């Protein structure tokens, strides 16, 4: 479902993403971890076609995102850490707009939208202006809208930011449920507990390279020591830091 082949992105002299190879199967829940400025968001941006890779390719749902961007995006959903929403629209109108953009049958939008609104506890906010909603509610509107077209691949950057425990639970449950139904999920997060709880496999990106991939248990076992995921993560991401260059500066 997602195939990254030799993905490289350079910003001037800096190699922000340095040759990532990764295959994620259908229905797999993949979480990517990494320190700040490790190259996670840049990888995601190349994966969804917002920026062109300097080298390599990203194939999403069977389509190369650079060669057939529209075919890939029809099967893809992307929710950034601070998603854009039209402030003066209501969540209902925004979801209708998204449904029309993805060319979904209006009846399906109605049923699917109502169901998603119910699951995400958005019923009370459907007819309120988005500008007046809290960050957490906006985040739920964005995730619900992104799920409206039943994407085959769901890419999400820091989904738990601004969500209270109850709604974080709802988002986790829905994503896990959809993943079980065949949707591939690529989740970028700083919260190790989220990755450990949800992901089938976890990848750790450090200084633009995928330094480790495996299940949470495999990552813990790699060290040969009985340690928590946090310890593995810290060890993997600090081992080469001393010899590294200054912290890369990435575009916002």
């Amino acid at each position, binding site marked *: 479902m997602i195939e990254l082949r030799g993905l490289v992105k350079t*910003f001037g002299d*800096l190699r922000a993403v340095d040759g990532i190879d990764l295959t994620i199967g259908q229905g797999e829940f993949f979480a990517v971890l990494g320190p700040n400025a490790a190259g996670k968001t840049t990888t995601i941006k190349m994966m969804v*076609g*917002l*920026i062109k890779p300097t080298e390599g390719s990203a194939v999403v749902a069977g389509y190369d995102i650079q060669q057939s961007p529209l075919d890939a995006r029809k099967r893809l959903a992307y929710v950034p850490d601070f998603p854009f929403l039209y402030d003066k629209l209501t969540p209902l109108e925004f979801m209708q*707009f998204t449904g*029309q*953009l993805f060319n979904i049958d209006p009846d399906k939008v109605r049923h699917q939208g109502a169901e998603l609104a119910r699951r995400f506890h958005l019923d009370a906010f459907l007819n309120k202006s988005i500008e007046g909603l809290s960050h957490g509610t906006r985040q739920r509107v964005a995730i619900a809208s992104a799920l409206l077209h039943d994407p085959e691949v769901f890419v999400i950057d820091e989904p738990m930011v601004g969500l209270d425990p109850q709604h974080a639970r709802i988002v986790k449950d829905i994503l896990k449920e959809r993943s079980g139904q065949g949707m591939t999920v690529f989740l970028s997060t700083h919260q190790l507990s989220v990755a450990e709880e949800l992901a089938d496999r976890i990848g750790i990106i450090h200084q633009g390279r995928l330094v480790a991939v495996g299940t949470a248990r495999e990552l813990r076992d790699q060290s040969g020591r009985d340690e928590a995921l946090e310890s593995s993560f810290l060890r993997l991401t600090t081992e080469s830091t001393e010899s590294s260059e200054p912290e*890369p500066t*990435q575009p916002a």
Partner: protein
Amino acid sequence: MNSASQPSGLKLLAGVHLRQHWRRLKGVMSQSRLLSATILFFLMGYCWLSFAIFHRAMRFIGSFPGLGDLLIERMLFLLFAFLFALLLISNLVITYSNLFRNRETNFLHSLPMHPNTIFQWKFLESTVVASWAFIFLIAPMLAAYGLVEKVDWTFYPMTCLLILQFVILPGFAGAWAAIALARYMDRRAFQYTLLAIGLVTLAALAFWLKAEQVTDDMLETRVMLVLDRLLRNTQFSQFAFLPSYWLATAVISWSEGASSATLFFILVLLSYGLFLGGVTMTFPGSPFYEAASAVQSRGSGMGWPGLRFRRHRRSHSNDFGSGGWLHALLSLPWWIPLESRAVLIKDIRVFWRDTSQWGQSLLLFGLLAAYIINLKNFSAQLNNPFWIHLIAYLNLGACSLNLATLTTRFVFPQFSLEGKRLWIVGMAPIGLNKVIQIKYTLATLISLLVTGSLIVLSCYMLRMPWTQALYFTFVILVMSLTLNGLAMGLGVIYPNFKEDNPSKIVSGFGGTFCLVLSFLYIVGTILILAVGSPWAQQARPLTTGIAWVLFGMLSLGIGYLPYRLGVRRLKYLEI
């Protein structure tokens, strides 16, 4: 998926945006009917005033025997040529921001929407935003021209058609230039280049259009020679490949009844519009995506070598003890407390590093300075004190109008922008009142430095005695204090903590209110002071005294009162 009966992406986007704009307008209307009525009244007043000035000027110029029509025509050619240049710049800047520095564009790129569709929508949006002011500016002028030339009713719909055909051309040019710049330049390099082009153009224009020293002898005996020079220097506006030339010729031809000539230029504008429109609407998808990707890919590590070096140097200066030259400079006035100095340094650095902020001000005041410096070429003819004082008051008006745009654009959003950083600035033991006071002082000092210098320069060029120069300098001092107080006070009373973009903060209710009040204050001040001028032909001390009392009361009401209300509001502020 449903393939039939779904609106196109362009229609969807248009629908969403129309709905958004309509709700925004309704929001403004519902906030205060009085304010909406004031804004409407203000706009109508502008149209009427602008029409009256153009009408009067055209009738005056048209009354020159044998030359009137020629001069009016040349005025139209010149005005359209300048406005065309301004339209090019504004289209370039607005399209660049809209295509490459816009969160909606990024959002749309992640949807199954063709880059062509995204580009088409953003192009239309940018062209409308960049052109509305042009239409607003020339409508009263064309109405005045029609009245002076006694045209029939067909002139007005015809000019509307011509203007629509015309404004789209700089839109196309601006869009392609924005794509090219985004592809090959980073934002900072783009800003510096734009600024450099602006300054060079300004210098070239100041040199080319420099007013010539005309002696009394020449005015009496060699009028034709002077006129000939004037026409020769402005000949560039009749360059046959300029779209502004096509527009001006078509407008003039229609007013003269030469319909075939008008038709010809309509077809010229139409053919260029169709050709460029065809190219722009069909092909830009790929270059636009390439450019958008380049902009997204550009970290602060890219750009021009010199700029990179500066950033490198800045990022590697890890000595917390050294604050740089600005810190050293502001340490000289020892009486400023450390915490106030910290806010001052932060504000100056933020302002300086945002090129778009001071770039606009520099262009505005640069134009004004170029005009004032040229005054020396006229002052020889200005023997009559009436004209000298009239020009001095007009200069005061021009300076304060520029100042009002500056205070509304930069001072008004200061508090709203600070709101996002209240976790550090607001929580510091300095107190919000003090922060506002420092910002107000800094803004007043900077604006006074610029406008005060211009007023002193204006008085010097007009060869006015020092007492009069002092009078005008004092007036601009009071006006600076007032306009800054108004902008700062209203900024606190009507904050917008949700927006990061200062121009969006200004475009809201409070910003518009600030602009309207500033304009009314300036008009009121100039009228009061001109009526009570101590140098008027029938000046009486009582009239002058009353004028100054009124001026003082007006300044207190417009400047001090909102500032005090703003400070009081800070006590009960909940964020």
